[in-house]
């Protein structure tokens, strides 16, 4: 495998892995919101 191919593969795949993990961890660590949708639904006016 050539050096240029290896550099591109590692940098692209590495970036994707880091960003995927970052966003997923952020989702898992963010506490759930407490407000309910039921009371706040806005009826559609036709």
């Amino acid at each position, binding site marked *: 495998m050539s050096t240029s*191919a290896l550099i591109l593969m590692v940098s*692209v795949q590495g970036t*994707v892995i880091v960003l*995927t993990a970052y966003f*997923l961890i952020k*989702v898992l660590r963010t506490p759930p919101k407490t*407000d309910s949708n039921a009371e*706040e639904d806005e009826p559609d006016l*036709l």
Partner: protein
Amino acid sequence: MAQVKEGWGSRIGLILAMAGNAVGLGNFLRFPVQAVQNGGGAFIIPYFVSFLLMGIPLVWIEWSMGRYGGIRGNHSTPFIFNSMSKKRIWKYVGVFGIFTNIGIISYYTYIESWTLSYTLKSIFQSFAGLSSDQVSATFDTYAGIHTQVAGNQLIINAPFWAIVAFVVTLAINIYILSKGLSGGTEKVAKIAMPLLILFGIFLAIRGITLGATGMAGCATCNSHLGLDFLWKPNFDSLANPKVWLAAAGQIFFTLSVGMGTIHCYAAYVSKNDDIALNAMSAGWMNEFVEIVLGASVVIPIAVGYMGLDWVKENAGFMMAFKTMPYLFNQWGPILATLSGVAWFGLLFFAGITSSLAMGTPFMGFVEDEFGWGRVKSALVLGLIILVLALPTILFFQYGVFDEYDYWTGTVSLVIFATAEIILFSWIFGVDKGWKEINRGADIKVPHFYKFVMKWITPVFILVIFFTAMVKPLQGEMGDWQLAIHQLFTKGSWPWANDSIIAQVFHLNEKVTWFKDGLPTGMFFKDMSRLLLLSTFLGLSYMVHLATKKRKLTSKSLQS
């Protein structure tokens, strides 16, 4: 409008379902083939530019449109669009968001059934000891629906097991859909997505570590040559509009934007819940499956055993079924079985999480507007899919399958995406839209994207739409130069066969429906178009009925 109490059970369930919607067979089969055909490593540059300037904005826009419609009681694109603009036309543009899914699911479920059958075949070691040609022939026998002429009669030979597998797969989908979002789709996503990623990691490790296999008489049988071919930058291809179009097209397919599924899933999100971070999490999960796993399985393993030249000539969708089982055989019976189950299992999981998403827009529509229960909605959907799918199965060799794929899986996506970006950024207004995206957001959306959504993404999509309409010859840079020269010197245009204009008017084809008393391929092509058009008109009529019903309800409430 009936009050539907559907909803997601958990945030992670929603993200996995949304990622499952995006992750499909194309992540493992379409992306690496597109990369190989469009300059290897350099393809990734236009791919990422398209992802950042078109994919991410569209994903945020679709999530926010869905939530905006959902909190007003609308869970299908005709009425989600209607909640953003009261002009009647938008309701009917929104029909694309149901039509596209019904069209795609009709042939997609058939492919899904192949993956289910092949998982079982792998468990029972049906490919053990078979040569490459025998593995390929196994598929032809399995799905080999063919027609023959006896006298002046057309006889259809339909393989029993392929149809049984299709009906079983359809039944599984319908059963899960009838269980609702949290009780069906979300539960499946929570099991299928982790398993898919696990199976993908296992196969990707095999692909990356395989190296030279020492196949007799094959100097290029080395998986690292496959990876090199896939990732070696070829910057010349960056000046080719064909590569940019292919990259933008891949972003459409991989993120499932322009379909209406994201809107429908997001329509069940609560008013102040985050969508900005959820969209990023699901979107990047899809990119992980595509770029990290998808790029490390088919091409490297195939090059490892078949050689680079063979892959360059034969890289395509059917490798999944006609080649991969033979490649797994090279690893001995136990590993071949495990790899076969992992490969076809992950394709099945990728398929079913996408087909469930495609079933949701119709379900949301009839539940909202006609008050149907889940079971009735799912059964009617199943019946529609069955009616639309049978021609793609029985007349596969006449191009019915390809016709469905072209109109619903390609053209409709671009039309719908063009319409939604205009609606969101220009009619609803990007200022209001920006507030929607940021309401309840758990991340700060870069302000730069407001400008992108108003100017860059619409232009990007309009250019794609325009070039798809008038594409000349193969769409290479030289073809465009030649076409423009021909336009000014001869006043004509060399249409590509797959340009929308050439397809609509049959420009490069001879229109003959019957030859020697028997239907031609053109007949089946036009009949499939008629069937798809009838489906679109039928759905539009249902939207018309739903509007009348809403008006009556509104009047009776006022009086």
